[in-house]
């Protein structure tokens, strides 16, 4: 029954990875910015929720604050870091280094302020009960799956029905096209950052309730999002979400066969293999070369 337990745990982690990865893929697809500080949005959202929760604020307020801080951070990055760099034609590495610098700052500031190591928001949602012999599930499992499902549905509707969503998808496919139609790519890229970063917040809150946060969690989440985006195929949100889910499941199920330290490495073996042999990913069309 250990396997089933791990599988279910993996599904929950995977659903949250899928949300974060999808946010990263949305930003990368629409703006071509490799938002390496995406993990910092996650960290900030999770810790702000923890702070408010532990100080007795109602949960909905904490969630709202988490979404706001994640979105605000993403928008600020676009406005104050990426756009100035792109204005003087900085290459992708300039962008990457700048983003990496910010994520280092956030990680260490959070570590200094909130202490290092894991902090969990204690909640009745995370009390596990035995649903099958030797299989334990907490309500947060169902909440996570439901939140992911609802958000993906909403995102899908937005991207196919709302004009701004359609424009975002078009931007991902062909940025020249957008300019030709006279749509403001500035505002669209702000929208991509806001939306993509907001997707990290619910995942962060649920992680804070389940396994808890540490100051370096953003780093891990970021690497997973990046791996999922590439494995899924750049430009394909569906691919990123699916790959995120699979990576979460794989990371958990691997525990059935190997020691925990191999779990993360397994994701990177997959990533490395994809880059070498199928750089366009599962659902991508464009080949990287």
């Amino acid at each position, binding site marked *: 029954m250990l396997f089933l337990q791990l599988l279910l745990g993996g599904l929950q982690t995977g659903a949250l990875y899928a949300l974060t990865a999808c946010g990263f893929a949305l930003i990368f697809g629409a703006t071509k910015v490799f938002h390496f500080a995406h993990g910092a949005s996650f960290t900030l959202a999770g810790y702000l929720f923890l702070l408010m929760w532990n100080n007795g604020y109602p949960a909905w307020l904490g969630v709202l604050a988490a979404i706001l801080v994640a979105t605000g951070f993403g928008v600020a990055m676009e406005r104050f870091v990426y756009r100035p760099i792109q204005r003087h034609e900085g290459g992708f*590495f300039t962008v990457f*280094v*700048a983003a*990496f610098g*910010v994520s280092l700052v956030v990680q260490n500031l959070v570590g200094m302020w909130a202490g290092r190591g894991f902090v969990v928001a204690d909640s009745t949602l995370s009390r596990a009960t035995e649903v099958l012999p030797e299989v334990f599930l907490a309500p947060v499992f169902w909440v996570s799956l439901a939140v992911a499902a609802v958000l993906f549905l909403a995102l899908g509707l937005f991207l196919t029905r709302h004009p701004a969503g359609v424009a975002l998808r078009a931007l991902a496919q062909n940025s020249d096209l957008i300019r030709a139609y006279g749509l403001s790519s500035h505002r669209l890229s702000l929208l991509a950052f806001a939306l993509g970063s907001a997707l990290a917040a619910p995942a962060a809150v649920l992680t804070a309730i389940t396994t808890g946060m540490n100051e370096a969690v953003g780093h891990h989440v970021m690497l997973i999002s990046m791996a999922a985006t590439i494995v899924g195929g750049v430009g394909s949100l569906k691919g990123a979400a699916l790959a995120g889910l699979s990576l979460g499941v794989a990371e958990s199920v691997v525990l059935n066969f190997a020691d925990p*330290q191999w779990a993360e490495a397994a994701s990177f*073996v997959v990533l490395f293999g994809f880059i*070498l042999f199928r750089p366009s990913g599962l659902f991508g069309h464009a080949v990287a070369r």
Partner: protein
Amino acid sequence: MTAYLANLATLAAIFGILAATLNVAVGYAGIFSVAHAVFFGLGAYAGAQLALLLVPDALLAMLVAALVAGGLSLCLALPALRVRGEYFVAASLGLQMMATTLFTEAKGLTGGMGGLVGIPRPMVLGFEVPTLALALAALVLILLATWLMARGSFGRTLRAIRDAESAAEALGKNINAAKALAVAFACAGAGVAGALFALHMSFVNVESFTLDQSVLVMAMVIVGGTGTLWGPLLGAVLLLSLPAGLSFLPFIPPTEIGAVQQIIYGAAMTLLMIFRPAGLLGDMRTGRKA
């Protein structure tokens, strides 16, 4: 105090080698590796094992380290030949994460978390020599080699590939060979630095070869200035003296020095990229497109 300064100088020379060789990949060939610590580690383990099991000969240790790291640089060259840009950074990150796990788990070769201890003092031709002298000599040789390379035809080939790969190829340049050679040189250099590090510390474990270390070396190159001769060295000295300098500031608790250091160089990386992407010593005109 002399011992303290000698230690700092030796580390500066070792990290100077690391930064200078990473600069060959990043600054000249446009191969943005975030896995330099992997090859530093390979060299350190190779050099340490040689000294522990066979002879503590420093020259032999450096040679073996260079061969091991240079040979395994193929792991980095392969993705460099197939993909570019973000994809390559992702691949090198993946390599770094896998290597960290391998270093931790291959206990027979690396000693795992406990590391390799009791590495004997380095000898050259049967005489014990201070690591500072060795490290400085290696640094000078590697800087000389990069300088010769940068101003010679190979450096020109790399810069041509960086600026316009298809045009370089259309002029008869074997791009894959040039890139693989640049990566092999950079990684072999990191291996030499690793052997020196192992002999100097007489103890190595995986903590010196993690992503954080790769990022530190990358920050050295970037803060100093990519594609310049002295920039990486300046970056190495600056970033290495940072923790030493911070420890003199009374209002920072000693436990937070590591974090403050990371905040400072994280912020420095971001601000430099926004306002001076060419680095401190970089030519502003050429730094625009990294």
